[in-house]
């Protein structure tokens, strides 16, 4: 018969870690998306002399491994004496990292809106702003959503890396339990199942929105 020394208390501990994972994901995706939309809009509309350097700057967080960014920012935080917790560092680094990807997704979505459609909107007397809000954003959203869902799921899994700066999220919680009960396969399976249970609804929600839009357009 199957026996395990993993207790209900351990399960609660895992779920607590999962809560932290969700919270970091939420802050990172929220902050990253807000910043990413602004950056993406700038990327899609700014003149080249602003666009080129911006693109180069945004390439940095995308090109350096996330783990290095976490460790570096965490160290610089201490050197600079910022009163940030490891949790805050994790959220900030992940939000910036997310925003750079989100910016490219938003930029692609905006550029996918045909110039002729925008011209039609302007010819009706809509201002540049109204055109953006009423026409460009809704249409860009339809293009960008699948990639954005993918990004969100990716960020949720990337949160596992923050255990290196001492945040006790889902993976770290499972490691702590493994150290004690010595059943790595079982505990990691549970952790994996929890990651899946958190990702699955987000993916489904995205698929549903996409289907609804496709029926119309």
């Amino acid at each position, binding site marked *: 018969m199957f026996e395990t020394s993993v207790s209900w208390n351990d399960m609660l501990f895992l779920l607590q870690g999962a809560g932290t994972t969700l919270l970091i994901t939420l802050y990172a995706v929220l902050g990253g998306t807000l910043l990413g939309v602004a950056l993406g809009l700038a990327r899609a509309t700014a003149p080249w002399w602003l666009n080129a350097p911006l693109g180069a700057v945004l390439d940095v967080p995308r090109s350096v491994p996330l783990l290095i960014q976490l460790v570096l920012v965490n160290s610089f935080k201490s050197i600079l004496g910022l009163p940030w917790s490891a949790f805050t560092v994790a959220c900030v680094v992940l939000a910036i990292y997310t925003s750079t990807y989100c910016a490219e997704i938003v930029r692609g979505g905006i550029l996918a809106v045909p110039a002729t459609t925008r*011209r039609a*909107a302007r010819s009706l007397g809509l201002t540049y702003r109204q055109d953006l809000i009423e026409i460009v954003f809704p249409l860009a959203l339809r293009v960008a959503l699948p990639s954005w869902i993918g990004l969100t799921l990716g960020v949720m899994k990337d949160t596992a890396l923050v255990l290196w700066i001492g945040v006790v999220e889902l993976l770290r919680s499972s490691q702590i339990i493994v150290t004690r009960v010595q059943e790595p396969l079982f505990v990691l399976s549970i952790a994996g199942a929890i990651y899946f249970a958190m990702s699955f609804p987000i993916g489904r929600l995205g698929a549903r929105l996409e289907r609804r839009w496709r029926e119309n*357009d």
Partner: protein
Amino acid sequence: MIELVDVRKSFGPLEVIRGVSMTVRRGEVVSIIGGSGSGKSTLLMCINGLEAIQAGRITVDGTEVHARGTDLNRLRRRIGIVFQQWNAFPHLTVLENVMLAPRKVLGQSRAEAEAVAVAKLRHVGLGDKLQVYPSRLSGGQQQRMAIARALAMSPDYMLFDEVTSALDPQLVGEVLDTLRLLSAEGMTMIVVTHEIAFAREVSHRVAFLQSGQIHEIGPPEQVIGNPQRPETAAFLKAVL
């Protein structure tokens, strides 16, 4: 009144409008005919300020379109334009497509805008398609929706840019019928078209444009029936 005085327009080194002057009075239907690349569509875009001009002057009811300080968004409320590609807003229903500008630009209430939109859509024969998304419409229906969308702003002028060129042949008739209807109602229109027979039928005057210049302008019986210039005659011979 729309007045063009020696208008010049270039794309980089390429001059596409080379000194065009013409006047369109209230209630008049003026067709512009000419080959591809003659500058017909560009000329229309200049009239409502979608394109800048390099020299000359365009005035609409005394407002100089390209003057500094001209509120183009305000000007465009009075000038409707319908394009070759109908450019439906795909995320909005037919009714919402037509209601959008009156609500956002003119600040009409939902009820007001809806009443106008329904009336305009019925007018172009789309009264039974109000809640449908544009993707469910044929090209001719989408083009008529685009016309209703422009009309909902109650413009004083309507510009038509080859509105039948992208349509299947069997759908051309329904769109031309809509234009006939507007012309019969006294709408002031500038119609860029390849439909020579249609231009002859509805226009008060026809302008023949080639290489960015008006070679001939006058009543259709003259320009199409009995062209005075060899360029016009050659063009008509090629397309008729």
